[in-house]
């Protein structure tokens, strides 16, 4: 009875693994097949002939692919750094300092999370237009670094640290800014890592933002560039799939390196 149950469990887990990995595996294998084999019937998981042709083609026919990758990296780095600064400063204020209006501001910030992004689409575009920020990364970075959810996360984390440390520092005549910098900040590494992962992912995945704000092909991010590339090579599916696989290298690598923090982030977001 017990072993029968375990067989069913493993069978289900295996089936889900197949469903999850199937699309990736087929894409990966097709990206190494000759272009003519992009639509075989029946589709074969293993290529008859292995070729790098598609990947070579991706970089030859579209000289921008490396540029787009670099753009995405720069953009994500800027958003990560900016968000860490903003969230840790605000989190410190909300969690460790006492000042009039603190709770009101905190609730105001939390409430803003209920506004769907769609409502802000038009006003944000008009603001960027008036500031002359269209087709520049400022339009993606500046709104990207303020994250109510990130501040909330940081606040919750900082509240869990005992107050003794900074009370001792205060008695020694330490200023609050120095306490933040020398006492609190070093303790927040795990929360920072989680925040950084979130910021990186949201910036790297973003499609609608670049689609609305960026016009020049050389400024595109990898996600927008991939869509552009697809438009140029509509029927060349093995090229498109090779480009898609390439675009996914970074996110997957980051995930494999920092898996722990992804899991931690999900756990924290469940605490809401």
């Amino acid at each position: 009875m017990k072993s029968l149950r375990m067989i069913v469990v493993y069978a289900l887990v295996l089936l889900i693994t197949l469903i999850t990995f199937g699309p990736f595996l087929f894409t990966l294998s097709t990206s190494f097949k000759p272009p003519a084999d992009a639509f075989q019937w029946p589709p074969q998981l293993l290529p008859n002939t292995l070729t790098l042709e598609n990947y070579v083609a991706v970089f030859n026919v579209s000289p921008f692919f490396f540029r787009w990758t670099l753009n995405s990296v720069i953009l994500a780095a800027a958003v990560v750094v900016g968000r860490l600064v903003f969230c840790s400063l605000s989190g410190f204020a909300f969690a460790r300092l006492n000042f009039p209006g603190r709770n009101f501001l905190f609730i105001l910030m939390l409430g803003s999370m209920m506004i769907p992004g769609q409502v802000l689409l038009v006003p944000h575009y008009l603001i960027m237009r008036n500031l002359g920020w269209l087709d520049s990364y400022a339009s993606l970075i500046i709104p990207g670094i303020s994250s109510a959810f990130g501040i909330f996360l940081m606040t919750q984390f900082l509240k869990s640290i005992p107050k003794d440390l900074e009370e001792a520092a205060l008695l020694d005549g330490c200023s609050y800014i120095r306490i933040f910098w020398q006492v609190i900040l070093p303790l927040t590494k795990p929360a920072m890592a989680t925040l950084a992962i979130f910021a990186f992912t949201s910036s790297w995945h973003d499609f609608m933002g670049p689609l609305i704000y960026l016009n020049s092909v050389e400024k595109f991010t990898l996600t927008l560039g991939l869509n552009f590339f697809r438009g140029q090579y509509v029927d060349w599916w093995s090229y498109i799939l090779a480009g898609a696989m390439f675009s996914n290298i970074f996110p997957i690598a980051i995930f494999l390196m920092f898996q722990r923090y992804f899991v931690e982030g999900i756990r924290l977001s469940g605490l809401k």
Partner: protein
Amino acid sequence: MRSIKLSTRQEEILTGYLCLTPYFVLFGVFTVYSVINALSMSFHEYNVFISPIFIGLQNYYELFLDPLFHKAMANTFVYSVFTVLLQTCIALLIAVLLNQKIWGKSFFRAAFYMPAVTPSVVISLIFSWMFFRDGVFNYVLSLVGLPSNIDWLNNVQAALPAVIIVGVWSNVGRYMLMFLAALQDIPRSVYEAAELDGAKGWNLLRFITIPLLRPIITLVSVLGIIGAFQVFTEIYIMTSGGPLDATTTVSYMIYTNAFNYFRMGYASSIAWVLACVIFGFSMIQRKILDTEIYY
């Protein structure tokens, strides 16, 4: 002594405001001003090239008569309800499966999370290719003896289900992890007590696990609804709202109105209706699903 204490207090207040200034400057511009601007925009006709013209409730009036909006609303409802139901149930099922003593647990946990770290543009392109008439999806259907001659993304009846499948596939991993974290927080003693009372297998799930997971089920389905109501990238890449508007969702319609037809006012009014629907929906969900739990 007293004067030093007072200055420390003042310093605390000052530091608090200083630390919050950067965020609240952006908050003022990108949230407060933007919300007001979006509201006022919805009462104007504005095409970016000539200055806004006040037209009162005209946009909302047009919206209620616009057959495309009705269609988009219906599509969004169907998409959201099916996606959220399916992904919540499947995610819960997988989490329960993985919460047992099985070999390779952490591998499977990471593996099932893979779609969540993949950009939706990449997912949409992969599935666009798999959904061709002679694509992988139909091949898999033919293996299990299901009808397999469907041109998924160009078929009026099949396109929306295809987009739903993609939505579920890409979201399940994230919610599975949330369920798994919550499952691990349920004390073992609860199960032991239930087992002593003779509860087994399915009954444990039905009477212990699911009731105890209620708060997290609420959270997952509310987050799911919020995400589903705003689905954009998949639609843009896979179907562009077609065929015959069969997959035009409200958020896709907002995008096309604002940035293809430059109808900023009309787009804003659609966005406000969407916001109200999302808000209403998550309130109802909370009412239905949320109950106090003691253990």
